[in-house]
C-alpha cells in the first residue's frame, strides 16, 4: 500500500513538474517562441478544463446512480462545438477586437461598459464557482482518504479538513505564481495554458488506463464487458427526458458561460482557426473521457462491496485489484483534473474581481494621483489579483467546510452550472441582437440569479441550513406556490431541471421584455453594433492583405474625403518620395501617419485613425477609437447646428431689418407725400394772396369794385390758410391722442340743432333740405359735446359742398341700440365712387375739384380721429344712394333719456 507520505511526494513532484513546464513555457513565450505553445492542439487540450474532478470521478458515480444520463454532460459541449462553432467564433472575434478579459468584461462592454453589470456578473461567477472549487477540494481530499482507509501500513487517518486547506493553499500559490506573473494586455497566460494542456493529457491517460484495465483486466475483454453491462441494472435505469434535455442545455450553456471556459476558449485563444481544430478535437477528447465511464461503473457496482462510494470507483477498483501503480496514476488524473480547474477558475475569477470590483474601488477611494503612474497601477493590479485568487480559494474552502463534503459530486457541479448559465441570455442576446440593452441584461441576470439561488443554491445546503425544513416543504409563510423546489405549483420535477426551467424562463423573459421596452444609450448602441456585426467591423487577427490593394483602398477612401485631385496628388507625391513609379506608395507607417494627418483635417483625428486602421488592418479599431469618432461627430453636429441657428438668426435679423426698412421707406414716402400736400395746400392760397396784393400794389387805376373784390379774395384766402393750419394742428393733437376731452352731458337733438345752425351760412340758405326725426334724436349723452358737434358740422358741410342733386336733401336718422347710439347722414347726391370709399378718411383725400370745396381734405380725417378719441366710430355706408356716413357712439343705458 502506498504510504501517505509517498502520495504527498507524488503530488509534490507532479506539481513541481507543472511548475517547470509552466516556467519553460513562459520563458519561451517571452523570448517570442510561441509557435508550439500556441498550436491548435494545445488550445484544444486547454479546453479540457471543462473536465474537472467532477468529470473524472463524478461521471462514474453519476453513471452508477443514473445510467447513461451522465452523457448529457458531454453532449451539450459537443453540440456547441460541432453545431455552434460559428457562435464560438463570434465570441472569440469579439474577445480579440474588444480586448475582452473575462465574461464579466464581455457583458459589461457589450452593455455600454457598465461596471455595475460587470460587478453583477463577477459576483454571480464567484458565487456560482465557489461550490465548484469546493467540489475539487472535496474530491482531492476524498481521494487522499481512500488511500488512508485502504492503507494497511497503519498511518493515521489525516485530518481531511487540514488536507483540503493545504491543497487550497498549494493551488493558490501555483495560481499566483503563474497567473499573475505579468500583466498581459490580453490576459494570456502561456505557462498556465501549457501546464493545463499537460494536465489534460495526464487525466485522459489516467482514465483510459483505468478503463482499459477494467475492460481487459477485470471483465476479460470487450465482449465480456458488454455482457456485464447488459446484465447490470444500469441498462434498465429509467430514461428521464426532462433531465436529459435540461442537462444537455446546462452543459451547452456552461461551455460558454463558465468563467474558466470563457478564459481558455476566448481570452487565451491565439488564433481563430484553432477553433476549427477544436470543433472536432474537443468533442473527440470528451468522447474518450466518457468512453470507459459505464464499464468502470458497472465493474465497480458488481465487484466492490455494497456501500462503496461510486464517485471513487476510479480509485477503488485498481486498489481493490491490488494495482497500486494504476491507482496512483488514477489519483494523479483526478488531482490534475481538480488542479487545472481550480487554477483556471481562480485566474478567471481574480481577473474579474480585480478589474470590476477592486480596481474601481481603489480608483474611487485611493489617491487618484498615483493612478497616473503605470508602475503603481501595475503593482495594485497584481496585488489585487493575488488577493482575489487567495480569496476565491478561501471561499471554496469555506463552502467545503460548510457543506461538510457530503453532497454527491455531480449535484454540486450541476448547481454551479445552473448558476453560471444565467449569463447565457445576456451573452447570446448581446452578440446576436442589437436591441438588447443594459436594463434588460441586468434584469435578466438579477432575476435569473435570484431564482437560481432560491430554488437550487440555498436549498442545496440542506433543510435547516439556510431555509428551514418547513419553508422547503410548505413555502415561505405557508404560500405553497412559492415553495423553492416547486415554484408556481410545478411539482414532481427534478430539482435541477425545475431550477433550470424557471430561472432561464424568467431570466430570458426579463431580458427580452425589458430590452424591448427600453432604449439603449448611445454607447450601448455603438457597442451593440460592434458586437453583433463583429465580422463586418474587424478582420481576423492573422490575415490581412498587404500591398497595392491596400494603397488603392486608401486612395479611394482619401478621394472621398479630400477630393480626387488632392488625394491623387498626395499619393503621387508620397510615391515619388519613396522612389516608386506610379501613384500608389507603399503603406509605410510614415505614409499612413501622414495620410492620417491629412485626413484628420477633414474628418477629425479619431475618425481618420479609425478609417485608416480599418483599411490597413494593422490595429483593430478599439471602442475608444469609435467613441472618439462619435464624440467628433457629435461635436461637428453641434457646431453645425450652432452655425445653422446662427445663420437662421442672421436671416431673421436681416428680415426684420428689411421689414423695418420697408416700413421706414413707406413712412418716408408718406411723410414726403404729406409734406408735398401741405406745401401745396399752403402755397395755393398764398399764391392768390401774393398775386392780388401785387396787383393792388402795382396796378394803377383799378376800379373800386375791382379793389374790393381783390381785397376780399386776399381776405378769404388768408382765412383759408388759417383754417388749414388750425386743422393741421387739431389733427396732429388728435392723432397723438393728446387731446383733452371736455366731457359734458347733453341731448343729441341739441347737438344736431347746433350743427345745422353752424352750417346754415355755408350753402345758399334753404337750398338743401334737411330731414330728421327729432323724437328719435332724444338721447342723452355724456361725451365731449363740442367735438361731437364738430363731426356733425363736418358731415353737414360736406353734404352742402358735394351733394350734386338738383334738389339736395340730407336725411339724418338717429337710432338707439344696445349700448350705443347710431346716427346716419345720407344725402341724395351721386355719392362717393366705390374705389374712393376706402380712402376718404385719409388726410388730403379730397376727391373733387378744389374750387367747389373749401377745405384742404382734412375734415373726414379729423372726424375719424375725433370719433376714435370719443370711443365711437365713423364709417362710410355704401349702397344708400347718395353719400352716407354712419356715426356710432357708445352710450350707457342709464343715460338714455
Amino acid at each position, binding site marked *: 500500500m502506498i504510504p501517505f507520505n509517498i502520495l504527498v511526494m507524488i503530488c509534490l513532484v507532479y506539481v513541481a513538474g507543472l511548475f517547470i513546464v509552466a516556467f519553460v513555457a513562459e520563458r519561451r513565450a517571452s523570448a517570442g517562441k510561441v509557435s508550439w505553445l500556441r498550436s491548435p492542439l494545445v488550445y484544444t487540450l486547454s479546453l479540457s478544463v471543462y473536465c474537472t474532478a467532477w468529470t473524472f470521478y463524478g461521471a462514474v458515480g453519476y453513471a452508477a446512480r443514473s445510467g447513461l444520463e451522465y452523457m448529457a454532460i458531454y453532449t451539450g459541449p459537443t453540440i456547441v462545438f460541432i453545431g455552434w462553432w460559428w457562435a464560438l467564433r463570434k465570441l472569440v472575434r469579439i474577445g480579440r477586437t474588444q480586448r475582452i478579459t473575462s465574461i464579466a468584461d464581455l457583458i459589461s462592454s457589450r452593455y455600454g461598459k457598465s461596471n455595475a453589470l460587470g460587478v453583477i456578473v463577477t459576483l454571480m461567477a464567484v458565487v456560482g464557482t465557489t461550490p465548484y472549487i469546493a467540489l475539487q477540494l472535496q474530491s482531492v481530499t476524498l481521494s487522499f482518504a481512500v488511500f488512508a482507509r485502504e492503507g494497511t501500513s497503519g498511518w493515521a487517518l489525516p485530518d481531511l479538513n487540514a488536507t483540503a486547506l493545504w491543497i487550497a493553499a498549494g493551488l493558490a500559490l501555483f495560481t499566483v505564481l503563474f497567473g499573475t506573473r505579468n500583466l498581459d494586455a490580453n490576459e494570456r497566460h502561456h505557462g498556465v495554458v501549457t501546464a493545463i494542456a499537460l494536465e489534460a493529457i495526464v487525466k485522459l491517460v489516467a482514465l483510459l488506463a483505468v478503463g482499459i484495465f477494467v475492460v481487459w483486466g477485470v471483465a476479460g475483454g470487450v465482449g465480456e464487458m458488454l455482457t456485464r453491462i447488459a446484465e447490470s441494472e444500469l441498462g434498465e435505469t429509467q430514461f428521464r427526458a426532462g433531465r436529459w434535455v435540461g442537462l444537455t442545455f446546462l452543459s451547452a450553456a456552461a461551455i460558454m458561460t463558465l468563467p474558466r471556459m470563457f478564459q481558455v476558449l476566448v481570452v487565451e485563444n491565439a488564433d481563430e482557426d484553432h477553433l476549427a481544430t477544436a470543433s472536432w478535437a474537443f468533442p473527440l477528447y470528451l468522447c474518450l473521457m466518457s468512453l470507459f465511464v459505464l464499464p468502470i461503473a458497472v465493474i465497480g457496482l458488481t465487484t466492490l462491496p455494497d456501500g462503496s462510494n461510486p464517485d471513487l470507483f476510479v480509485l477503488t477498483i485498481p486498489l481493490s485489484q491490488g494495482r497500486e501503480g494504476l491507482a496512483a496514476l488514477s489519483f494523479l488524473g483526478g488531482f490534475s483534473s481538480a488542479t487545472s480547474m481550480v487554477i483556471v477558475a481562480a485566474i478567471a475569477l481574480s481577473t474579474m474581481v480585480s478589474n470590476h470590483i477592486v480596481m474601481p474601488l481603489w480608483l474611487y477611494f485611493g489617491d487618484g494621483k498615483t493612478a497616473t503612474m503605470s508602475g503603481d497601477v501595475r503593482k495594485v493590479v497584481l496585488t489585487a489579483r493575488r488577493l482575489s485568487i487567495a480569496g476565491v480559494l478561501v471561499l471554496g474552502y469555506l463552502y467545503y467546510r460548510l457543506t461538510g463534503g457530503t453532497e454527491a459530486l455531480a449535484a454540486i457541479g450541476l448547481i454551479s452550472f445552473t448558476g453560471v448559465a444565467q449569463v447565457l441570455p445576456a451573452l447570446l442576446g448581446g452578440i446576436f441582437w442589437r436591441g438588447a440593452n443594459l436594463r434588460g441584461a441586468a434584469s435578466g441576470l438579477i432575476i435569473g440569479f435570484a431564482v437560481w439561488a432560491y430554488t437550487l443554491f440555498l436549498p442545496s445546503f440542506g433543510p435547516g441550513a439556510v431555509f428551514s425544513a418547513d419553508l422547503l416543504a410548505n413555502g415561505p409563510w405557508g404560500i405553497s406556490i412559492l415553495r423553492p423546489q416547486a415554484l408556481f405549483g410545478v411539482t414532481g420535477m427534478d430539482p435541477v431541471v425545475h431550477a433550470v426551467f424557471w430561472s432561464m424562463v424568467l431570466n430570458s423573459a426579463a431580458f427580452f421584455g425589458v430590452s424591448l421596452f427600453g432604449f439603449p444609450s448611445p454607447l450601448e448602441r455603438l457597442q451593440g453594433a460592434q458586437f453583433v456585426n463583429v465580422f463586418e467591423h474587424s478582420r481576423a487577427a492573422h490575415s490581412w492583405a498587404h500591398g497595392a490593394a491596400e494603397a488603392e483602398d486608401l486612395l479611394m477612401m482619401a478621394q472621398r474625403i479630400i477630393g480626387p485631385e488632392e488625394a491623387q496628388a498626395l499619393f503621387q507625391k508620397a510615391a515619388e518620395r519613396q522612389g516608386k513609379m506610379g501613384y500608389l506608395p507603399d503603406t509605410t507607417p510614415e505614409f499612413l501617419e501622414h495620410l492620417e494627418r491629412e485626413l484628420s483635417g477633414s474628418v477629425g483625428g479619431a475618425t481618420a485613425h479609425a478609417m485608416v486602421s480599418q483599411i490597413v488592418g494593422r490595429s483593430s479599431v478599439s471602442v475608444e477609437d469609435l467613441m472618439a469618432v462619435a464624440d467628433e461627430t457629435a461635436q461637428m453636429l453641434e457646431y453645425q447646428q450652432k452655425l445653422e441657428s446662427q445663420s437662421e438668426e442672421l436671416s431673421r435679423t436681416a428680415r426684420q431689418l428689411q421689414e423695418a426698412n420697408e416700413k421706414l421707406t413707406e413712412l418716408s414716402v408718406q411723410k*414726403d407725400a404729406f409734406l*408735398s400736400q401741405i*406745401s*401745396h*395746400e*399752403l*402755397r*395755393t392760397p*398764398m*399764391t*392768390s*394772396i*401774393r*398775386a*392780388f396784393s*401785387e*396787383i393792388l400794389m*402795382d*396796378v394803377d387805376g383799378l376800379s373800386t369794385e375791382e379793389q374790393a373784390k381783390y381785397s376780399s*379774395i386776399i381776405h378769404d*384766402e388768408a382765412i383759408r390758410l388759417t383754417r388749414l393750419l388750425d386743422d393741421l394742428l387739431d389733427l396732429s393733437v388728435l392723432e397723438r391722442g393728446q387731446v383733452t376731452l371736455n366731457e359734458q352731458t347733453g341731448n343729441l337733438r341739441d347737438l344736431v340743432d347746433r350743427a345745422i345752425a353752424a352750417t346754415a351760412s355755408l350753402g345758399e340758405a334753404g337750398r338743401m333740405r334737411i330731414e330728421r326725426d327729432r323724437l328719435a334724436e332724444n338721447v342723452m349723452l355724456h361725451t365731449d359735446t363740442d367735438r361731437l358737434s364738430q363731426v356733425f358740422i363736418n358731415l353737414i358741410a360736406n353734404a352742402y359742398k358735394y351733394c350734386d342733386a338738383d334738389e339736395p336733401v340730407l336725411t339724418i336718422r338717429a337710432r338707439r341700440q344696445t349700448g350705443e347710439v347710431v346716427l346716419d347722414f345720407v344725402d341724395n347726391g351721386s355719392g362717393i365712387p366705390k374705389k374712393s370709399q376706402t380712402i376718404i378718411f385719409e388726410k388730403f383725400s379730397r376727391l*373733387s*375739384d*378744389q*374750387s367747389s370745396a373749401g377745405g384742404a381734405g382734412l375734415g373726414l380725417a379729423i372726424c375719424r380721429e375725433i370719433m376714435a378719441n370719443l370711443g365711437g366710430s365713423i364709417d362710410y355706408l355704401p349702397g344708400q344712394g347718395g353719400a352716407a356716413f354712419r356715426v356710432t357712439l357708445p352710450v350707457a343705458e342709464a343715460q338714455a333719456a
Partner: protein
Amino acid sequence: MGKTVLLIEDEPNIIEAIRFILLRDGWTVQTHSDGETAYDAVRDTMPDVVILDVMLPGRSGFDILREIRTTDTTAHLPVLMLTAKGQVRDRELAEQIGVNRFMTKPFSNTDVLASVRELTGG
C-alpha cells in the same frame, strides 16, 4: 390781336390773377381747368404759350406735358409750368420731360409776365 396764352389751372383765384396780368399786357388768354381734357384744349387752341399747373383734377401736369412733347404737332409749343409742390424732384422731372420754364407758387406777377414774353420771343 395779341398772342394767345392757354392757362391750364384749377384754382379760380389764381386763374383770375394770371388772367388779369396777361390781359393787361395785351395777351389773349384762354383758360382750362380740367386735367383730363387739357391736352385736347392745347391741340385745339395751338396757343403761343401754355401755362400749366401740376396738380390738376383728373390728370397730372407732367402727363399733359409729356403728351405735348411726344406729339409732333404740339412738341414745339413753349410750356411754363407752375407748381405749388416746391420739391426739387418735380423740377427735375419737368425738365427731363422738356419744360421750357418751371416756376414755384407763389410767384411774382412780374416774373410770370417776363417768362411768357420770353418764351414767345416777344
